[in-house]
């Protein structure tokens, strides 16, 4: 039994050493062949390297010394100083023009990608917090009608302010819930309390309002309106007046 075991181990050892030897021979052969190829085709390899290197060197040379330089200007210090003053004056007047474009009073900036709002007064940040914007859902029904729930981007103004707003549900609100669409002034279209205590209109049916679903703040879940929590809504309502600017991006 022990002899058999010994024979088996011996065989395995012999086989593995044979395998190592053959693979070693194989790699030696390959390396010899590569060496022979390099030795025989040394010019070809050199040419190939030059083909790659010469354009690279030319490119770096062009970038180092080929770029045009400013003309050598001969000017006395007074001329330079006068030109410097002129440019500085012009720059300052342009900066004033640019600064004048930012509203001095309160304005709201909404980031619809991160669902955040920032209330500014001039260049000062008053408040930054979460909000909810359009969900980008494209709702389709069998009657080939489509509604896209996205918040528009650009510059808007507050067109109206309401306290205790009542939501007049549009057609999509019924279609979305699988309900039949009632007539235009049917009582089921009117729902109080769902928009919070205040609403500010941006036009075309888009509002800044409150929400019952506070856990969704910070997520894109609305039908295009901007939802804020109760505290922020009150701050925005009291800060912004009719005509105040709202920037959405």
């Amino acid at each position: 039994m022990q002899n058999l075991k010994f024979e088996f181990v011996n065989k395995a050892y012999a086989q593995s050493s044979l395998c190592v030897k053959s693979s070693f021979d194989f790699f030696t052969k390959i390396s010899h062949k590569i060496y022979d190829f390099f030795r025989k085709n040394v010019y070809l390899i050199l040419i190939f390297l030059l083909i790659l290197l010469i354009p690279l060197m030319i490119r770096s040379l062009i970038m180092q010394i080929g770029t045009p330089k400013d003309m050598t200007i001969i000017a006395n210090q007074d001329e330079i100083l006068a030109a410097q003053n002129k440019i500085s004056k012009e720059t300052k007047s342009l900066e004033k023009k640019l600064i004048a474009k930012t509203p001095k009073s309160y304005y709201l900036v909404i980031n619809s990608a991160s669902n955040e709002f920032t209330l500014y007064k001039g260049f000062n940040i008053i408040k930054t917090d979460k909000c909810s914007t359009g969900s980008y859902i494209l709702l389709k029904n069998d009657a080939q009608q489509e509604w896209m729930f996205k918040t528009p981007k650009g510059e808007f103004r507050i067109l109206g302010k309401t306290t205790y707003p009542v939501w007049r549900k549009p057609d999509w609100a019924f279609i979305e819930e699988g309900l039949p669409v009632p007539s235009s002034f049917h009582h089921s279209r009117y729902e109080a309390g769902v928009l919070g205590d205040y609403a500010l209109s941006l036009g075309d049916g888009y509002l800044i309002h409150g929400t019952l679903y506070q856990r969704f703040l910070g997520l894109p879940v609305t039908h295009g309106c901007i939802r804020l929590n109760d505290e922020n809504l009150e701050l925005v309502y009291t800060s912004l007046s009719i005509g105040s600017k709202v920037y959405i991006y």
Partner: protein
Amino acid sequence: MKILKIITDFILQLNWIKRILYLFLTVIFIFLLSVSVSPLHKMNEYEYLVTSDSLFLSKFDSVLSHPELSSFMKENTKVGALVKLASNDSIQLSVNLKDSSVCLNIKGVKIHESKIRQFESDKLLKKMPVIQYVKLFSEPVGVVSQFATIVKEPVVVRQAPKDTAEAALTAWKPDTLVQNPAFLLLELDYGIRIIFEQDASESSRENWVKHRFYGRIWSEKSIKALGRFFTLKKQEYYPTIKISLPVDELRAIYRALPANAQVALSF
């Protein structure tokens, strides 16, 4: 003549496989050479833009090209471009490499500012003479094309339910956790390119998207270059600025930019 004879003798002693190989290598060499000198064409193009505008040249005082005034001129050009950008109604971009900031503006109001974590600017742009800088960047530069690894509008199509029971079953739950890695290429006028990449690419998926993004840019560039080479046209050079931004900010910037965006570029 002697060199020609040596070359002819050398070619004659080769077998036909080697002749084809050498011919192929020569073609590659000429192609690479034509690509390597392409920045010169771009420099000439910018130079021509200046010299062909006689009105601009007559207004531009030569003293303004003095090296001592270059920083003042660049600041003036930047503010001038921002004022012109403000006349546009839609959201526009301003990239300021000196302040390391990328901003979104509407009608002159800065509505978003991102701090650049890292950037690489092209040598050709860095060494541009003041007169060319003023000519090219005193007005906002138009965006010719935009290509990104994220969608502009993440639209979700939803079929309206037939009744309330179906509506309850298919109630939509918001999910914003799945977000693609963000890489953006803006091709501007004058052949300038701005590549925005998210600052952290650690996961294998992010790296895969990054390699695919750069692979696509590289393959498109190579195909164009080969096309130009075989049609005997001048090779194009694209001065490129590479900017690293936090991923959320990059998404916000790309989604805010309109199709006909403009960029006030300063460096």
